[in-house]
Each structure stands twice: as structure tokens, then as C-alpha cells.
């Protein structure tokens, strides 16, 4: 089968590899019908999460048709022929964390927990196509995919919607939604969202779905005008980080209080706001004084209103520096974060699609065959050709 392979930082290629087989008795094999490229894939490909091995298959946003199930799969939950979305993380449904619906923290699915334990103190769940930090599982940018503990992880989908309306239930729709929902938004709240990438776009729409009074989106009007326009189309007020003072605008928009909820939907490869800050982080990352560029978190902490909530959806992997702890502590802020607990949200978000309250395909700008995935990675990284979200077709 064809699969997208990581070879070296910034280098991926499509290669012929063997088809996956059932390894454990609760595995299923999925024929992938749609699979997407995510901002997290960029962190992995670019080497910011340095646990990829050459030859690893990428991809964690797949859906498809079940082709084969192992002998111990509970067939009342999933069976051959079912149409399923596969959450990006693999969960067991049984452990301490799964019982508390913290599925991305599952204790039983990461095959190499000792890496996470050394780097993070404890390991996260296994994640598809997401480096050996999260178990080294072969990913979903491929024609076929093995799904462990399939009766828990395969999310059955109805036939009536096309792939593009459903596939984002694997990651970015629940991610944008959780980023707002777990901050417990109130009807008079202002939500500010850094980053108008796919995750930011779903956070903006989720904030409205959850009844926020005002949504403000921050990104770069010169680099990504189409993303800013998409944010405005959803009803958000936009701030151009390139030309405007983000802090001043946010305070003006909130009667001097600052936003109640501040969401980082940017992550570890953020662009700096000032020359000084940018140079600072460049020098520090070079000296391994930090491993990432936390510009958006820093600004979110400074802008957030006293007693407000900062929600970190953007991914970080290691050590960040110059986090304004003074702001965090003295302003009585709450931090909400985590890899998304996808399984928790799939039923209610599927319902929002059914009810026509959202059509998740709004975010798709590019549909390409899997064979063109390396080009797709380039335009998505460069934000060129108006690229916001790419859906790959493995059959084409």
C-alpha cells in the first residue's frame, strides 16, 4: 500500500509499504477513505518533537471502512463494513484516566511509556503516527490502518454525510471545542483565540456554539489573509498581530478587563511579536535553553483578565522559557490544557452536525491524492496557495 513516510526533518515521501496486519486480538484494519494533515504533523516533521525515526508512517486524522476485525473485537460495537472515524489517540476505556473520560491520558496504550516518563514525568496515551514519544504507532496517512482496541476506538458514523463533514471528529473539531468547553464559558464572556489555523477555526465556531458573547481571533493578516477572512466569516473580530498592538486592542474590546478566556491555538512553532522576543527565543532554543517558541502562551497570560482562564490547545513538547509566572499567579489565572479527549466529544459533536448547527467541511481548502502529500505538507507549512486544511484521498 501507499503511505506517507517521515525520512528526516522537513523531508517526507510517499512509499510502497506492506499492508498492516492484525497484531493483537482486539485490533481492526481500516481501509482509509479520507485522511488529513494537521499542525501537529508539522511539529513532528520539522523535528520539534524529536522522537521520529526514519521510516515512520505519519497521520492521525483518518476515517474509513472496517475491512477486518480481530477475534476478540466486540462485534456489537464495531464490525466489518462499518464506516468509522478514528480518534488520533488510542485509549483503553478501562484505566483510571479513561474511567474519568481523560482518554488522551490513557495509561495502557503507549508502547514506550519510559520515554514520556523521562521527558514529561508520566507518559500520554498512544497516538497514531505521532513519534515514539507516544508509542510509535504507524499512522493514518496510508491506504490501510491498524486500529488497536478497535471496539473502543473506532467511532461508528452514519452513512448520510460525506467524509469531509465527519473526518474532523478525529481531532480538530473536538480540539477546538474542548479548548472552549473546558473553560466553562459564560454568556457574557469574551473569548480570544491566538492562531487562525484549522484548530483556531474550530475554536472560534465552538465558542459561538457554546454561547460566548464575543470572539476575537489573532493571527497575521499579511501572511494568512484567507484565515483571517474565514474567522470574520464566522463572526469573530480579528486582530492583525503584524500591524496592531494585540494587548491594546483586546483591552479596548473588553472594557479594560481583558478577555475572560484566552486560547492558544498556535503551539510550539509560534512566530514572535517583537524582534527582541524572537531573537531571544532563537538564541535560547539554539543553546538548548528551551525547545520551543511559546510566544502565544506568553501573550495570552499577559492579556487574560484577572481570574480568567488560559486554555492551551497548541502542542508543546519540552521546555519553554520566560513564561510570565508573575501574571499567572498574581492574576489568579486558571490553566486548562491537554491533548484532546476525543472520545468524550464525538457523540455530542456528531449531533451538532446532524442538527446542521455546523458544517465542518467549511475549513477544507485543498483535496489531493495521497501521492501528492509531500507537496501538500509544503503548502500547509508555508501557508501558501491559500492553504488552510488539506484532505488527502488515499485511493486516488
Amino acid at each position, binding site marked *: 500500500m501507499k*503511505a506517507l513516510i517521515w525520512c528526516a526533518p522537513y523531508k517526507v515521501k510517499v512509499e510502497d509499504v506492506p499492508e498492516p496486519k492484525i*497484531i493483537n486480538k*482486539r485490533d481492526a484494519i481500516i481501509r482509509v477513505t479520507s485522511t488529513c494533515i494537521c499542525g501537529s504533523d508539522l511539529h513532528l516533521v520539522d523535528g520539534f518533537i524529536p522522537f521520529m525515526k526514519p521510516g515512520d508512517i505519519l497521520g492521525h486524522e483518518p476515517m474509513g471502512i472496517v475491512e477486518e476485525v480481530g477475534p476478540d473485537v466486540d462485534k456489537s460495537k464495531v464490525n466489518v463494513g462499518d464506516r468509522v472515524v478514528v480518534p488520533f489517540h488510542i485509549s483503553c476505556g478501562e484505566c483510571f484516566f479513561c474511567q474519568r473520560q481523560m482518554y488522551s491520558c490513557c495509561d495502557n496504550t503507549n508502547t514506550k511509556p519510559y520515554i514520556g516518563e523521562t521527558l514529561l514525568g508520566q507518559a500520554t496515551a498512544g497516538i497514531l503516527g505521532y513519534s515514539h514519544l507516544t508509542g510509535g504507532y504507524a499512522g493514518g496517512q496510508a491506504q490501510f490502518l491498524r486500529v488497536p482496541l478497535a471496539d473502543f476506538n473506532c467511532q461508528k458514523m452514519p452513512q448520510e454525510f460525506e467524509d469531509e463533514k465527519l473526518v474532523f471528529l478525529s481531532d480538530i473539531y473536538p480540539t477546538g471545542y474542548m479548548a472552549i468547553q473546558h473553560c466553562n464559558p459564560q454568556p457574557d464572556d469574551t473569548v480570544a483565540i491566538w492562531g487562525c489555523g484549522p484548530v483556531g477555526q474550530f475554536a472560534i465556531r465552538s465558542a459561538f456554539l457554546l454561547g460566548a458573547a464575543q470572539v476575537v481571533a489573532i493571527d497575521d493578516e499579511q501572511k494568512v489573509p484567507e484565515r483571517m477572512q474565514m474567522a470574520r466569516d464566522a463572526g469573530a473580530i480579528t486582530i492583525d498581530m503584524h500591524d496592531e498592538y494585540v494587548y491594546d486592542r483586546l483591552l479596548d474590546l473588553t472594557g479594560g478587563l481583558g478577555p475572560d478566556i484566552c486560547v492558544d491555538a498556535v503551539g510550539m512553532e509560534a512566530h514572535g511579536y517583537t524582534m527582541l522576543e524572537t531573537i531571544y527565543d532563537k538564541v535560547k532554543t539554539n543553546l538548548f535553553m528551551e525547545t520551543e517558541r511559546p510566544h502565544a502562551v506568553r501573550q495570552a497570560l499577559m492579556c487574560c483578565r484577572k481570574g480568567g482562564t488560559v486554555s492551551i490547545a497548541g502542542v508543546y513538547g519540552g521546555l519553554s522559557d520566560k513564561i510570565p509566572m508573575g501574571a499567572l499567579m498574581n492574576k489568579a489565572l486558571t490553566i486548562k490544557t491537554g491533548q484532546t479527549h476525543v472520545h468524550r466529544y464525538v457523540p455530542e459533536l456528531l449531533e451538532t452536525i446532524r442538527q446542521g448547527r455546523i458544517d465542518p467541511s467549511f475549513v477544507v481548502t485543498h483535496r489531493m491524492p495521497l501521492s501528492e502529500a509531500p507537496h501538500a505538507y509544503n503548502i500547509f507549512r508555508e501557508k501558501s496557495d491559500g492553504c488552510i486544511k488539506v484532505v488527502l484521498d488515499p485511493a486516488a
Partner: protein
Amino acid sequence: MPQTQQSAANRGVHTGDGRQRSGEGPLRQFIQEHVPSLTPQNGHQAHRQNVADGERVVSVAAGAILAGLGLARRDLTGLAIAGVGGALAYRGATGHCPMYQSLGVDTATGEQHRRSAESRGVQVTESYYIRKSPEELYSFWRNFENLPQFMEHLESVHNEGDRRSHWVATAPAIYGGQVEWDAEITADEPNRRIAWRALPDSDIQHSGEVRFQPGPGDRGTNVTVNLQYHPPAGQVGRWLAKLFGEEPETQIREDVRRFKRLMETGEIPSIKGQPRGTCLGHGTRS
């Protein structure tokens, strides 16, 4: 020492005495596989290792990437980035950081202390909450023939009567392939505790104990496993490494974790045999 305190110490990433916790053996293996060209050769003692392994992985990776990034840019800042990246990769690969040396920082000594303890035998205590009843966990463990399902170094165990069993463990072929011994149960408290030991005339001095105690709330059963392995009398050195590889404590910790996973989910997560690419064009299975 109370049980909870002891297991808390076992779980510390860095314990007070500078010991680094279990993961570091497989991590070292990961560095060796991942960046073999950067792994120092044995006997290369020009600079002593003073950067702990977890940190080295990140240094190597961050350094290599930065060097690559810097070299891709043909201007002055690019050159500067490449230089720093190279230094980082050096630090990660050799385990030696000139800056740490000048600051008198040594994050690796604890690991070396611990390694010399290997030659004195292995004693490991691990505990996990497992979301199953003491009854289920006890009865699975009480049938020693189940142990090879989660203890990676065991090839087979055969019960011979109610209290006696015959154990076969795998060792690398160059060391003879197998070690065998007979064991007997020394304590059996249904749903609470099992203890066993190798018979006194065995090639190996081994004893073990597992306790099952109800955990707080809905956290399941607190399972505490205590295992001891000692080289046969008179025989010194690396005997245990033959059985467990370089890091016996880590291996045993992972064994107990496999028991938890097997009990909670019915399986042990695995990626053995999944497809992967070669970057040349003909994929393989790993």
C-alpha cells in the same frame, strides 16, 4: 518504611540520591538506534559523561535539527545556528557538556552508582493500582504458568503439584540460551499475598512476593511486586545482565506494567510487525 512512601520513591523521576528512574535503559537504546553515528564508543573516556540520558536525547535531536536548519540557510545567522546546533549534538552524543563541567554540574553520576549495584544482584519493588478485584488478580498470578504472558524474560513456567514449579528463562544465545530452576511457594494467602523462592540448590537465587491490597475509592487493587535475583554463589559480574539485558530494574518494572495492562485491557500494546518505510522506496515490517 510504609508501602506508599516506598513506591513514591520508586516513581520519582529523580530521587533524592540522584538515581534516575527506570526509563533510562530503553532510552539509551533509543538513542543508540536513533542516532547510532552519534553514540560514543565504549572505552572512549576522553570526557566523562555528565549529561543524563533523557536530556541527551533532546540535546541530540535539538542539536541535529538546528545544525540542519542552520546549514540550510546560506547567511551569517545560518552559520551561527549551525555552529550552536553542532555543539548541542556533540553534547548529546558524547554525554559531555563543557558548560556543565565549568559549572560543576553532573547529572549522570547517580546512574553510574546504580549500575555498579547490579553486580550485587537485583532487588526491585514496583507497585501499581490495577482496576480489577484482588480475587481476579490473585487467581491469575497464583497460576504461575500465566507469568510468561507478561514477564518478558520468562520462556515458560510449569506447575509441578500445588506448590512446586519449574521455571525457564531466556538469556542471549551466547550465554547458553536458557536458565532453568525449580521454585516453591513459601506463602499463600488467598486474595492477599503470594511468595515464592527458587529451591536452595538452584543455579539462581531468586525470590518473589506479590501483595494485593484494596486501593482507595475506585482505584482498584494496589499490587506490589517485590522480586530479587542474585547471581549463584561465587559467580560475580554481569550474570544478571545475561538474563535481563543492561537494565534489570527497568525490565522488571515494565513486566509489572505489562501485568497491569493485560489485566485491565486483556492485551499488551504492541507495534511489532506493523509496516514502516525505508526512505528508499521498499517498505518493511518492524
